[in-house]
């Protein structure tokens, strides 16, 4: 009975030991909670063949042959507007082949957005019911995917692309893929 009582007082220490174990695991090298890994990395991108915003469609097969950047966006998404200047720079100064997928959106609204803020995309595909986004595993817009020349997903960026991400990760990756 007394031994049982003593054991009870050990419980806080044991719980803390378990917790500390988790903390040690979390500090292991290479663990970064900011990275959202994609199950799709290094796999072939899901097939899509979408109606386009300007009549021309957007299909995965047409993108093969050189590395491209696919950006999921929507007119209703505020962070996408934040991202716009970065995308404009990518398209105009860095000449990155950038394709947009308009996610769960009305074509008119998207048209208005691009007319107002500038259109960085070579072509925009319409994904009104979000099916392509679902196949890619999009958490929320904006999200960007780097596809290599064979149509495999090589990198995923969640949230608006920042200048830092572009300089440190995106551009070097595209450069490497072109070789």
């Amino acid at each position, binding site marked *: 009975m*007394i031994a049982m*009582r*003593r054991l009870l*007082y*050990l419980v*806080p*220490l044991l719980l*803390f*030991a378990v*917790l*500390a174990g*988790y*903390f*040690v*695991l*979390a*500090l292991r*090298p290479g*663990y*970064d*909670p*900011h990275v*959202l*890994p994609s199950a799709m990395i290094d796999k072939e991108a899901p097939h899509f063949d979408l109606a386009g915003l300007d009549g021309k469609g957007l299909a995965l097969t047409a993108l093969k042959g050189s590395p491209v950047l696919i950006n999921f966006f929507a007119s209703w998404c*505020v962070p996408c*507007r*934040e991202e716009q200047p970065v995308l404009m720079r990518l398209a105009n100064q860095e000449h990155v082949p950038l394709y947009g997928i308009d996610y769960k959106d009305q074509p008119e609204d998207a048209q208005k957005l691009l007319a*107002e*803020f500038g259109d960085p995309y070579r072509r925009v595909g319409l994904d009104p019911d979000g099916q392509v986004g679902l196949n890619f595993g999009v958490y929320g817009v904006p999200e960007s995917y780097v596809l290599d020349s064979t149509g495999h997903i090589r990198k995923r960026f969640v949230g608006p692309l920042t*200048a830092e991400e572009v300089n440190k990760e995106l551009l070097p990756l595209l450069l490497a893929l072109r070789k």
Partner: protein
Amino acid sequence: MTTELGHFALILALCVSLVQAVVPLVGASRGNLAWMAVGRNAALTEFGLVALAMLSLMHAYVTNDFSVINVIENSHTDKPLLYQITGVWGNHEGSMVLWVFMLGVCSSALALFSNNLPPQLRARVLSVQGMIAAGFLLFILLTSNPFLRTWPPAANGQGLNPVLQDPGLAFHPPFLYLGYVGFSVGFAFAVAALIEGRVDASWARWVRPWTLASWCFLTIGIAMGSWWAYYTLGWGGWWFWDPVENASFMPWLVGTALIHSSIVVEKRDTLKSWTILLAIITFSLSLVGTFLVRSGVLTSVHAFATDPRRGMFILLLLLVAIGGALTLYAIRAPALKGGGLFAPISREGALVLNNLILSCGCATVFLGTLYPLFLDAVGGPKLSVGFPFFNRTFAPLMVPMILAVGVGPLLSWKRGDLLGALQRVWAAYVAAAVAVLVAWSVTHRHEIFPVLGFGLAAWTGAAVIVEFAERVRLFRVGFGESVRRAIHLPRAAYGMTLAHFGLAVSIAGFSASAFDSQVIATVHDGSVLKLAGYELRFMGVERVPGPNFAGNRSTVEIIRSGRVVAVVHPEQRFFPVQQQTTSETAIRTNFLADLYVALGDGDAAGNWTLRAYWKPLVPWIWIGAIIMAFGGVVSLSDRRWRVGVAARARRRPVSVLQPAPGE
């Protein structure tokens, strides 16, 4: 030169804190009074040295010494003086110096005002404080030194994160840290009591004011942080269940439990080992919070720059401090003998319920915060639980406790009369029913839980008033007699009434947030938006230069029934040094509701995004928190805790302690 002085002072402070940690402890176990007395002077010296380090760091900031790396990374010549000073703790290294500085404030206050403590207890408490200080000083010097130089000096600094250049945020860390660090005193008392193997009513009497003071600071600190998030982030939210917020909220929850359980130790000489455990956990959670925020193991919007080396060091610190204290607890606590017995329905019972619920609430927040970490460790997907988890688990858990806040104080010690108490608060039922009906009919969206929230707030508020009226026997005796009774009530009783009433006010504020309305629209000069019976007329944007930013200042007229009732100026500020934009929201309040207007992005053609929210009762959240903290301060001013009273009380037998507030 002054920078090296600060660095040197910090190293010296480490040496002194080691002396403070070891000498009094050895002295206490050997009964050597001279060694025990070292604690006091060591604590004061250590504080002086840390203060010197703090001042020299401030000096480097104010004089724009761009040969100091920390100043380069966080300051700029264009920055206003206020933010040059507060920038000292706007970064990881500087905030750790502030942390140790606040610890010094507590230790030296303890050293100065503990003359009436038994010398052994005092020596041990100061020694534990010395150990904590030594650990953190070592941490600063080894992994986060703010005094490092670089050569050649930089031409200018990189500036402070614009989001941090705000009075609300500039002043909330000192409050928050004073709260966190203040709990170290309770921790030190708990460890000292475990070493001595003795906990009695007078022990609780010493611990309680310290805990209460830290709790007040933490309450204000959390409220300031939440208010800052509300007016600065520009989306009108006031609590995000973000890991950093939770890190401050968890010690607050357990600290609240501790304040209540130490009453039971003080009045009834029971629940001792539980109270000791709470004192240990409260400070442990402050430490765990520090670890979570600074090691980068969780994603957060306000994270500091992180470094795994730092994480490892803090983890070691956690293992020694928390692991050590809990080991001591496992060995010594079983021997602590409980005193008074009590029936489940009694004041003690109500306080136990409070403790259980607050602890469970804290455990919920803890699980929710660390869930991503646990899941990742077993190879699960990366995800974090957000609002839905906390709203569905934490909020319902708090309901029984809030109900108990109304009745608990009406129960007597040992054995209470629940039925009698429930009958005496009949006015509270009426108030709750009226509140629910009014909320239901006034609000357009018939959401059941927020409406019940109003009922809960009214119940608590009314029950608190009933309890106070009972205590002064209002309407039972003459009015003059009631006033006389009110004057002679102990301050602690007033403190409780105020704090509980503050809780009711805050709950009303929380509940009302379900009923806000908003408009988001693209506007140009002369556009009119309609919101909650107001019209907002957008009058255009003008460019206004700031000291270190370029501002786009808009003018919005607020119109009610055709008359302009106010003109507000929501603003966007662009900080060229960091290439960052912040939003200065305009908030118009009448204390019943806020009208909240934020300016979004604009384009060359003069179209701007404008977001406007109408938020009923939202100021009550912070007013309630201020009332709670004020209740704590009033309780602190109680006669029983004045210097010397504890010593006199200790000499009397425990049975004739001061009467409880309710008696």
